[in-house]
């Protein structure tokens, strides 16, 4: 039969049409490959017809060649199109099979949390650093001289007895009033860094001192014996209470938003004169905006400048202190000091890495 091959244009056209029809109905790669082998393989009508062209007359050869070219192209196009479609469908099916519920909780190693007080202190530090100030710190077990005497709290000063001080045992000596003690306390205020800072760094000096302080108050909803303050001290030529008010207003905005500001009320601290209580206008106060006590401040008392060897006629300065706990309680609407000091992870975890 092979040597008797004849070219039958009608038959091959019909065969290819049948192949294309089958391609169009195929849905898997296996089917497609079988169709390809049947209609375009070595034994296929198309291959046979191509081989038979050789035995035709010249004029017939040309027409037959043209026809075969068209049939091959038609078949190839149909095949390619279908192959792409089937591959896409198979891939889609495979991916569909891999679909998961993306909302499942994935917490192999969740973040821990910073303590909001520590983080808030960093924010306050950043406020001062942004103004070009230095951050300074001093010891928590402090000499009475830096905590009191240098700050114009003489040994007989009534305010010294009002500080609820933790005294530290130590090698016994006498204080300036003749009372026996170690002249060492747990610092009652970060103001103890004022004269340390002045003696160490000289003037002009612009420092903020965040840190832990201690008073003999039992823990309750509003008091804690161990708490944190940020002290700010600026000593330079030409500073006035106007500079104090300016820095306080900026800090209020940094902590409590653009509508916050401060006001001063006359008060008394041994280490400042004039002295003032610092009130905060708190826009987010529960029950409506209002004034709240925030800290204490004033112009550095000349005796404090003298403790650091400075001439009060030449230099002036201002200082203020705010409670970090108080600031956080206000900002985050915390009603009980216990939450700040007990270290319950459920408290800190609300704040995650911020405050």
């Amino acid at each position, binding site marked *: 039969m092979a040597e008797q091959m004849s070219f039958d244009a009608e038959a091959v056209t019909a065969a290819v049409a049948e192949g294309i029809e089958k391609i169009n109905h195929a849905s898997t790669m296996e089917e497609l490959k079988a169709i390809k082998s049947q209609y375009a393989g070595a034994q296929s009508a198309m291959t046979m017809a191509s081989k038979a062209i050789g035995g035709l007359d010249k004029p017939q050869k040309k027409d037959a060649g043209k026809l075969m070219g068209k049939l091959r192209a038609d078949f190839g196009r149909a095949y390619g199109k279908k192959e792409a479609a089937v591959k896409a469908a198979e891939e889609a099916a495979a991916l569909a099979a891999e679909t998961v519920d993306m909302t499942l909780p994935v917490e192999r190693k969740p973040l*821990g*949390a910073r303590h909001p007080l520590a983080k808030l202190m960093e924010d306050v530090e950043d406020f001062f650093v942004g103004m070009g100030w230095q951050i300074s710190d001093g010891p928590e077990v402090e*000499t*009475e*001289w830096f905590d009191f005497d240098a700050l114009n*709290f003489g040994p007989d000063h009534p305010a010294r007895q009002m500080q609820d001080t*933790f005294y530290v*045992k130590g*090698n016994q000596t006498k204080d300036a009033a003749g009372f026996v003690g*170690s002249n060492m306390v747990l610092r009652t205020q970060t103001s103890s860094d004022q004269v340390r800072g002045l003696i160490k760094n000289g003037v002009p000096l612009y420092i903020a001192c965040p840190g832990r302080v201690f008073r003999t108050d039992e823990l309750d909803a509003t008091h804690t014996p161990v708490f944190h303050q940020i002290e700010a001290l600026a000593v330079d030529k030409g500073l006035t209470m106007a500079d104090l008010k300016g820095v306080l207003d900026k800090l209020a905005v940094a902590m409590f938003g653009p509508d916050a500001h401060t006001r001063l009320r006359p008060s008394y601290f041994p280490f400042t004169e004039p002295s003032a209580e610092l009130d905060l206008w708190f826009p987010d106060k529960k029950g409506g905006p209002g004034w709240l006590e925030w800290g204490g401040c004033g112009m550095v008392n000349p005796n404090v400048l003298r403790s650091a060897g400075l001439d009060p006629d030449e230099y002036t300065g201002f200082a203020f202190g705010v409670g970090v706990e108080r600031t956080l309680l206000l900002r985050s609407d915390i009603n009980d000091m216990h939450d700040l000091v007990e270290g319950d992870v459920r408290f800190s975890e609300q704040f995650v890495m911020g405050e």
Partner: protein
Amino acid sequence: MPMVDIDWLREHVELPQDLTYEQLAKDLVRVGLEEEEIHQSQLTGPIVVGYVVDATPEPQKNGKTINWCHIDVGDKYNDVDENGNKVPRGIICGAPNMAAGEKVVVTLPGAVLPGDFRIEPRKTYGHISEGMCASERELGLGDSHAGIILLRDYGFSEEEYENLKPGDDLMHLLHLDQPLLEINVTPDRGYAFSYRGVAREYFDSTGAKFTDPVTELTAQAPESAGTNGDIEVIINDEAPIHGVPGCDRFYARAVRNYVPGSKTPNWMRRRLSRAGMRSLSLPVDVTNYVMLDLGQPLHAYDLDKIEAPIVVRRAKAGEKLTTLDGKERDLSTEDLLITDSPNGEQGSRVLGIAGVMGGLYGEVTAETKNILIEAAHFDQVSIARSARRHKLPSEASRRFERGVDTQLQPAAAQMAADMLVRFGQAEASLTPTDINNVAARPAISFKTSEVARVAGLDLTDDVIVAKLEAVGCKVTDEGNGNLLVEAPTWRPDLTMPCDLVEEVARLVGYDEIPTRVPSAPVEGHVGLTVPQLRKRQIADELAEYGLVEVLTYPFVGDADFKAFQYDAEKVAPVSVQIVNPLAGDRPYLRRSILLTLAQTVQRNIHRGIENVSLYELGHVYLWDPQAPAIPALPGGVRPTDEQIAALNAGLPDQPMHVAGIMTGKAEHDGWLGDARAVDWTDAVEAVHRIADRIGAKIALEQPKADDAPAQWHPGRVAYVVADGKKLGLVGELHPKVNEALGFPAHSAAFELDLTALFETLNNKPVQAKPISTFPPVKQDLAFTVSDDVTAEQLREAIERGAGDMLESIDLFDVFTGEQVGEGMKSLAYAVTFRAADKTLTGDDSEALRERIVAEAAKLGAQLRA
């Protein structure tokens, strides 16, 4: 702190009729007298006038006699009988002074008395009592509970008493509905511990008309009869403190023929009671009243018991005194005493500690007829020290240590004498004794420009002078803006120009000060220091690693030492100890953060929280028993560098540490599978993360089990070493520690000395090595080595052998077992070599391998086939 009663304040300064306590608080705070609290009335009505129609005594089985009374309480509150007529209420009253015809205080059902005592109808002694007749104590008006209040004796004039009708509201008439303002007085304002002072401050704040009561009283006081008037007085202070005489003024005035048992008028008792003082007797009440009103503490003696002369002197060594509170006190030679002179022996009998508390002898008693009023001025420091020494803060000492007006004494004695004359039918002497050694205070030279220089207020000299005069200063204008200012005698706190700046600024108002932001000079280092940055990085790193930051109290005690297997007898002497700890069982400061961190871990576990992992950055406190004593130095003078060194030398070391405790599961259990339990690896990883985060080079050095610190699992602990120094520990807590604290087994922990760790950092920028583009050669090397050799030692040996060509080394397998033999382990490393300048040949890598094997062999390690 002092109470302000609007009714009383009105006597010295004009107040608006409708002034509320809230408004008064606002007016006073503006000039610096802060509101402590507005105490609201503790009573709720109805509390009304009742007329006793009849009172029938009914003897009881228990021996008591009670009265079954019918009391008319007005139409509004009276009972209604069956015919609809109003009839008096039936009330049971056990008071002995109950009698028909009296007008009494009736608390009706619905009323609430102090102590949440609710009045309700109740069945008692066979009757229904529909209300209660009240005593003074029941209403919180005073101490008297001997009987009920009879309104005829209760401070109403005859006419007022007649006009009292049954049912009239007594809440108002007896001031029971009145709140009270408690103010906070700063230590510089002793004068505000008086109505006179508060009235002046109200005037300073509002400009209301103020009349200083002292002006008229001083004018009324008789002329001094010298040191030997009503009684001879000798001031003999042989040991003044700081050279200041203990007593610079002693004024004494006799009041004779007082009628013992004279009653204190009710208005005065009410005022004293509202000020928190008990009414004791007229003479004592009068001295208290004058002190509250004018600010001058007074002392009343029984003149007949005092033997002249009175001597004011310091105590002698070994002298004792039993004070009014019944306590015997050892006196110090610094205590200033008031004494008298029995049997002609001058100053031999102690009457009291001056300005602090009297003794038992010489006080006025129920029999006293002749009274001596002492009005003195004592040194602030002397009084403060005596009050502190004897732990006797009294109303008197509180005023003296803040400074009392040095010219107030004749006026105060005059006021007291007037009252004893008026209410006790006494006769006041006209020959007071007065020793007045008050030194003239130097005037303050004040440049008006100081107000602008310090307060930033731009004021004219006229305004400045006016404000200074308003607070009571005498001002002499010396021209060119120079003033000579004499502070008023009641303001001992005004001594420096800045004090005057404050007075001017607070009267003008701090709100008038402008606002300006100063610019700090940008010199030297700017921004956070390197340790400050590193500290933050570590805090963030540990939180990112999954731990929760806490800030614990640094207090520890024997229980904490014991839980951590410390020997308290060894740790306590090197711990900082608090003299007055809040919790007596935790008197020390921590030497290790782990101890206080553990308390917090425990608290969380007790609250049902699992898998607690906490960390803290904070200080520890290392007491050196050999530390030198810290000197006492005066303030206001810069200490020498040597003195500053001496101050610091006595302080304990207080390095910054970081510590963590990890318990429970290392990861979350969940649908992804069961999580691994925490063990030593978690703590080691935390420590490496800390070091890597800040660029520190650390290594772990494992002690022999016998040498491991007792807090730690002996086989699972290592020192953290940097720069050859041991800076911390990491591992698992000892099972005994876990058991004592209730922690899960294998709880892990670490603690590092950050102060020391930061010192090992060079803080220079990282110096980068060039990156080679030649191909790497990888080899796996497995060694068998004795258990004694640590992975760290073997790694170091491999690094030494490989030298420059080593790119990386990773331990990928550790195993022990029969194949490797008893006491041995196998460690397998994936090692990558790469040269900077060429492709490594097979010979090159073979040579490296041989060098590594040779280095490892020095540790006894054998390359496995």
